[in-house]
């Protein structure tokens, strides 16, 4: 096999693997490398049947740093503004919508490359029940441009699938 053919084969293999990963929605064990995650990701879509307020595509941001840190936020654009313009004096309904529509956390992350799982080791969360916990995510697809994972126990109950696109 000459060099050109080998390159073509490699390209086909990579393409094929990307296609496989694309088709594997809901099925864990996507092969992943920690380095593939590094960078910034914006929410592209989500499927969270039990969420009180569905997130729109621009409501999420996720940063994986090379040094092992990560930062995550889902901040729902549909949460109503506070009439008082002060979050210390929100009404019960305003506070309730904000708590239901928003979650943010940061910490460190680790990857089980063979199992296709990602674990968030949460240093601090706006949902304090998650502070100090490890949260497992099943990666169902990871290409240069897209990351999909399933959260098997979402904060609002049930599962959630999040789709992220790489930010340039």
């Amino acid at each position, binding site marked *: 096999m000459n060099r050109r053919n080998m390159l073509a084969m490699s390209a086909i293999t990579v393409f094929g693997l990307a296609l496989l990963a694309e088709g594997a929605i809901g099925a864990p064990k996507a092969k992943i490398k920690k380095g593939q995650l590094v960078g*910034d990701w914006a929410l592209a879509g989500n499927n969270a049947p039990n969420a009180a307020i569905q997130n729109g595509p621009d409501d999420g941001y996720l*940063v994986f740093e090379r040094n092992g840190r990560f930062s995550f936020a889902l901040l729902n654009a549909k949460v109503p503004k*506070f009439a008082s*313009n002060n979050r210390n004096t929100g009404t019960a309904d305003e506070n309730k919508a904000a708590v*239901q529509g928003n979650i943010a956390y940061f910490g460190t992350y680790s990857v089980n490359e063979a199992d296709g799982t990602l674990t968030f080791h949460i240093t*601090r969360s706006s*949902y*304090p029940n998650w502070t100090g916990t490890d949260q497992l995510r099943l990666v169902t697809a990871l290409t240069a441009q897209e990351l999909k994972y399933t959260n098997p126990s979402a*904060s609002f109950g049930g599962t959630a699938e999040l789709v992220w696109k790489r930010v340039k």
Partner: protein
Amino acid sequence: MNRRSILSISAITALGLTVLPGSAVAQQKTLKEQLVGTWSLASWEQVMPDGSKVHNYGTNPKGVVVFDANGRLFVMFARPDLPKIASNAPRTASAEEAKALVAGSLAYFGTYTVNDADKAMSFRLDASSFPNQVGSDQRRTITSLTADELKYDTIALAGGKISVGLKRAK
């Protein structure tokens, strides 16, 4: 000029050249280049118009600020003692729990720009856990910046001046 002199002059020149680029680079480093990276929240204090001091996130606040080289910004601040939700579900948080969580934590993301002449940053908030901030441009004035420490001031939406201290996360 003998050979020895030429060698020592070369050595001095080489030394000079290695010293020069280092200091030149340090001088030319923009504020943005100095900001890029991850910072941990070290202090947060609001001085109200009447002079009273408020610590929204407690006196030992927790948080992170990420300035990406691509101009993206991520911020999260929280009290260390946010109350856990007894029902173990945000959807069924009690009114008291929701109030404490909203007042005691803040997260937003967007983009940032830096004005070197004014020593000012402008944060564009594409999303915020406090919805009144969504879409706003917020000015931050840098009061101190070293390799390991960043301090900035901002005018609070609800009045008064907020001073934030950050330490570079290793």
